[in-house]
């Protein structure tokens, strides 16, 4: 029984990581209607910026805040300078562009900071709560921050004019434009916010998995799984999806199929959900006029 609980808790922790990444994916999807393959690498790059700041002696929370700000501006600039010229390009061109961004960020991080793994500080102590390594404060911290981010996002998208305008811009650009929404800038804002969320996710993940340029490659796949299982257009669904993927993956891995097939299991979940409930377990079906 203790083993079962341990695996569930370990699953919730990795689930929180997947959820963080999934949130960034959802953010971009909701605000631009695209899936950003470079989300993980952008997060990783931002985390390196935080690491460099901390390494230079900047206190943790100031580095944390400035990194989020830098990431926001960075995301905004990427949209303005790289994606804006492609606004009317077919979706395949965008996919190529996202994959290019992915390898550019990965290679740049390696070039600047080398590929050796680096320890990244966590604001939460690795303090054991139960006495036998079951739950520690750091794991709870990751879950907590993920939920807080989710709360902020939900409120932002549902109850603020700006959030509504962003959703409108993504879902029906021409109507939104007629309503006086500055669609192009909404997209840029979406990228900025997604980058900021990614940066937060990166800084939460790094203390658990160590910082290296490939930190996010494995995680991104699980993040996709989480987002798709939960519903790519629904932040709360994506977070729940993250926890579901994390916990199920551990339990199925430990008890049923063995560790070898964990990733396969996550991908099978994606296929299953897409087959039977394409909008995700918690997603609304989006009807589009074509």
């Amino acid at each position, binding site marked *: 029984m*203790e*083993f079962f609980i*341990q*695996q569930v808790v*370990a*699953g919730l*922790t*990795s689930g929180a*990581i997947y959820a963080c990444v999934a949130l960034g994916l959802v953010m971009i999807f909701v605000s631009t209607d695209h899936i950003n393959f470079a989300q993980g690498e952008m997060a990783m790059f931002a985390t390196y910026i935080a690491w460099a700041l901390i390494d230079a002696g900047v206190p943790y929370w100031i580095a944390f805040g400035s990194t989020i700000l830098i990431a926001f501006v960075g995301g905004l600039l990427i949209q303005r300078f790289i994606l804006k010229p492609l606004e009317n390009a077919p979706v395949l061109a965008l996919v190529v562009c996202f994959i290019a961004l992915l*390898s550019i960020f*990965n*290679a740049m991080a*390696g070039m600047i900071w*080398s*590929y*050796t*793994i*680096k*320890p990244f500080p966590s604001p939460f102590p*690795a303090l*054991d709560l139960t006495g*036998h*390594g079951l739950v*520690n404060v750091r794991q709870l911290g990751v879950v907590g921050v993920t939920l807080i981010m989710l709360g902020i996002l939900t409120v932002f998208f549902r109850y603020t004019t700006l959030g509504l305008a962003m959703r409108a811009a993504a879902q029906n650009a021409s109507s939104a434009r007629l309503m006086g929404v500055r669609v192009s800038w909404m997209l840029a804002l979406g990228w900025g916010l997604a980058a900021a969320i990614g940066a937060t996710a990166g800084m939460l*993940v790094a203390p*658990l*998995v*160590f910082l*290296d*340029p*490939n930190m996010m*490659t*494995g*995680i991104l*796949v*699980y993040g996709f799984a989480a987002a798709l299982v939960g519903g790519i257009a629904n932040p709360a669904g994506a977070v729940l999806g993250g926890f579901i993927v994390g916990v199920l993956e*551990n339990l199925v*891995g*430990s008890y049923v199929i*063995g*560790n*070898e097939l*964990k*990733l396969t299991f996550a991908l099978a979940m994606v296929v299953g959900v897409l087959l039977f409930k394409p909008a995700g377990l918690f997603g609304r079906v989006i009807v589009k006029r074509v």
Partner: protein
Amino acid sequence: MKLSRRHAVIGAATGLLARPALAQNKYGPGVTDTEIKIGQTMPYSGNASAYGVAGRAQSAYFRMINDQGGVNGRKINFISLDDGYSPPKTVELTRQLVERDQVLLMFYSLGTQTNTAVHKYMNQKKVPQLFVATGASKWSNPKQFPWTMGWSPNYHTEGAIFAKRILQTDPTAKIAILRQNDDMGGDYLDGVKEGLAPIWKNVVADVTYEVTDPTVDSQILQIRNSGATIFIDIATPKFAAQAIKKIAEIGWKPTHYLVSVAASVGAVMRPAGFENAQGIITAQYAKDVTDPGWAKSPDYIEWKAFMDKWNPTANQLEGSNVTGYAVAVNLVKLLKQCGIDLTGENVMRQAADMKDYDIPLLLPGIKVNTSPTNFSPIRSVQLARFDTDHWSLFGDLLSQDAHA
């Protein structure tokens, strides 16, 4: 001056005639009076990019050799290409190096899967695939693959040596194994299995992870739950660091055997936290440059001077700087031994005839030795325990012959 065609023909003819008379310089592809072309594939990007450090150290080393006049007056033209640790890319780049660039040999290309992908090709083309940077046991098979040679002690040997020690010191303890689910993990496991055969029933957990897993936390919990007191950790650097940290966090205190591929102080022990890494046991064949005990040895001083001058941006704590350097020194020594017969055939002939090479930064007592039937240049290791911030050697040199 304008040369007429006739002059050129006469020139060529005398050249042809003159050659047998001189009969000395025999050149294979990639060699001229002034140059030796050497190829390499290295993961400068992608999953295994941490090992790319070795390629950079070697480029720096050959720059230094060239600056000092080269090998018997020939400059080394070292073409090291990034294969991102992806076998299809390795095939493409290796073919490019062999067929277009016409290298004399491939040197220290990194990775088990990547080298496997070009293993047959290199042997068909009869181009030396020298000192491949992987510890798989299949590289020392001179009968079937006479153009391929490994360098470091192989994983199988190391696994068997760990097992041997467990058998001697703790034959009743429960044992758990964590391993990467690939060739490397399998090779180590075979060695461990061989050594532990009499007490294999003591192995209570044999848990794998995939390189795509974000963490090995779940696996560590499974292992601890098995009740083992000995932990054999067959992981690559990132996962080894995660395991070390997680074990400390959950307060588990096993006897921890860590494979040498993940025993870098700078790339694993320091990130994992020195306080978490105390007492871990590994096997070494090269000097750990973080060990203050070596600070006065002449080979260390020479290496340090080389690194400071020729590779100043590298992190000197990374073990690949040491092995990369040592194997490059070995290659230059081998090329000198080849003299003026710089053909692929002679390179292999001489590579199979390295006698008691003294290579800097190998542990005292370890010499490079090969013969036409022995394609494993280094066959000995010594165990080391992590102490404060470096590895401390203990016990005797242990060699493959005694355990294979």
